């Protein structure tokens, strides 16, 4: 029998992560297709960020396997992840504050002249080109990024991922630190990236962000996946119920629902 479904871009199977005796992620299986946004939601400490840190190489898994294009891969550190075109936009904005935008964009992957020195001009040129596409108002190419606004800094982080041909992008609360206008800018950016065929894992607390941008939604609760649903099959309230109670919509009792209403 032919395999009907295409191979997912990424599959994480039976992933386990424990910190001491605490299971932060327990037997989680999740996948992502090209040109798809999968929203990853859950309460604080549900294990979303830990799961994504495994994929980005920032933290090793204790058990389970990762497949990219169906092939089992080993990701031990952030360098490994970049080899498979997995790029991460961190919640904490992983930028070196004291270095300018081109320096941050090429951090760890600097362009060099034939003398082996940093090719600042080429890096600035490439940064100007990509920022012209992502954020045309961006003008501060020579100042340390500490002086930039949250949205501009996020744009630098996203530009970094885009420039290095990310196929799989992990976005951990990409709009958490931003104002409304900047949030919109980032949302448009995410749609643009999706249209270019990039697969995106979107971690967010903002249920509107998730419903607005995702194709599928995976809900985590106490380190486990409650369910992965098509966006069209559920309402925001269903998802909220899953986040808070850790149960699928059908399994929720009348009593629990009443409590939920009360809390809301």
């Amino acid at each position, binding site marked *: 029998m032919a395999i009907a479904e295409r191979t997912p871009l990424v599959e994480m199977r039976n992933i386990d992560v424990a910190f001491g005796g605490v299971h932060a992620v327990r037997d989680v299986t999740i996948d992502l297709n090209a040109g798809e946004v999968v929203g990853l939601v859950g309460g604080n400490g549900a294990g979303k960020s830990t799961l994504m840190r495994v994929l980005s190489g920032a933290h090793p898994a204790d058990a389970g396997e990762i497949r990219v294009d169906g092939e089992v891969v080993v990701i031990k550190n952030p360098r490994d992840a970049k080899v498979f075109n997995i790029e991460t936009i961190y919640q904490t904005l992983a*930028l*070196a504050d*004291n270095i300018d935008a081109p320096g941050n964009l090429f*951090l760890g992957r*600097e362009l060099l002249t034939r003398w082996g020195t*940093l090719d600042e*001009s080429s890096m600035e040129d490439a940064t100007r080109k990509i920022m012209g596409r992502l954020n045309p108002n961006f003008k501060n190419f020579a100042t340390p990024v500490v002086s930039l606004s949250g949205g501009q800094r996020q744009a630098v982080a996203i530009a970094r991922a885009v420039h290095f041909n990310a196929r799989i992008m992990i976005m951990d609360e990409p709009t958490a630190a931003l104002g409304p206008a900047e949030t919109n800018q980032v949302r448009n950016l995410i749609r643009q990236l999706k249209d270019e065929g990039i697969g995106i894992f979107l971690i967010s607390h903002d249920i509107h962000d998730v419903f607005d941008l995702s194709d599928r939604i995976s809900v985590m609760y106490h380190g486990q996946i409650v369910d992965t649903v098509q966006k069209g099959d559920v309402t925001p309230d269903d998802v909220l119920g899953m986040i808070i109670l850790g149960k699928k919509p059908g399994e929720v009792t009348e009593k629990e629902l009443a409590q939920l209403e009360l809390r809301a």
Partner: protein
Amino acid sequence: MTNVADAAPVPGQIEPPARPSIRGMLAQTEIDLRLFGMVLALGVILVVFHIASGGKLIQPNNMITLAVQAAGIAIIATGMVLIIVSRNIDLSVGSVVGLVAMSYALLMTDWFPDILGLGPDTPFLWALALALGIGIGAAIGAIQGFIIAYIGVPSFIVTLGGLLTIRGLVWYQSQGAAVNGLDPTFLLIGGGAQGSVGEVLTWALAVAGCLAIFAIIANGRRQRRRYGFPVRPVWAEIALIVVGCGAVLGIAWFANNNFWPQGLANRVAVEQGWGPAPEGGWRIPTGFPLPIVLLIGVTLVMTWMATRRRFGRFVYAYGGNPDAAELAGINTRLTILKTYVLMGILCALAAAIVSARLNGSTLDIGQSYELYVIAAAVVGGTSFAGGIGTIPGAVLGAFVMQSLAYGLSFIGVNSPGQNVVAGLVLIVAVGLDTINRRRGS
């Protein structure tokens, strides 16, 4: 009424020239204001002590002595910048200088002749000693760097331990004795009349420096033009070239107004058969002493490494945000290890200067260098918060510290008094940095 929006420049239009103010004009030259301020401070210190000493301080021979004394501190300070920028510290530099200086002395007096059978006439003995000393410095740096970067012991503890341990080892090297009598060629590294490059080479170096300034500015402009980036106004470029070249040529002229001591000149004249001394005695300009030439070379190489090499970029990125550097895939541990190896090499170079000046080594060579070196880096704008600091700034900082010490000794303040001032300057410099940072955030 104008508001901020009105004042903002329209894209594509050239900004109207701001009201000509000194601050505005300085900004257009894009000079580092902090460096500029330090040059001024250095000038003020020298002038104050010049006046306090009754107009005796600012003379070529005094300034050259001061510069040679500052050279060792300045060379080590260039490495301390990278260590502090990457959020570490090295308290062991003084002891490493002591150990390597004693090694040079023992190599040339005992080990070469007794163990390797190399007599004093062996050519390049000085180079062999220097190479071995640099190797020892690098090895000590590698051991300390490994413990700090790969085992994770705080650098403060590792190098504090190093300060004691290595100083103790110096005693065992010579069983507590001072050692004298180095290779005559090696002695030239310490400067003095014969260890200076002379009039012609001094002018040649100065002219090369001017050409380099011109080339760097012209090349930078061409590069930015090629990519269509904004460039400095032409007058600012010309002003930079004129001031830069003027300073370089002025310093060369000053150094060439320092002359060989008569006694030495007469002795060498007899040895070399120069004939009778001219009327008024020999007037042979010394020009730049070798320690200063070495310092200039070290400053250029270290600045190049810090600003133009990936290694330097990694050091600054790690200092700015260790997590970001790690997540960007930088091998941060190896980067930290390298900063300590580099530091060991720089200590070995400084040790060559001091031991050559002494024609040997004693037990306490390099003592309290850590204080002067850290003070030089911090006075020069290196921040303990990490990620911020420049090599030229630290070199200037070393000159500020040494000018204070030299100026104080010149007006008769003893060495404990100089220590009091140096310690206070260190605290004030770090204090100002802390206040500055708090106000900035």
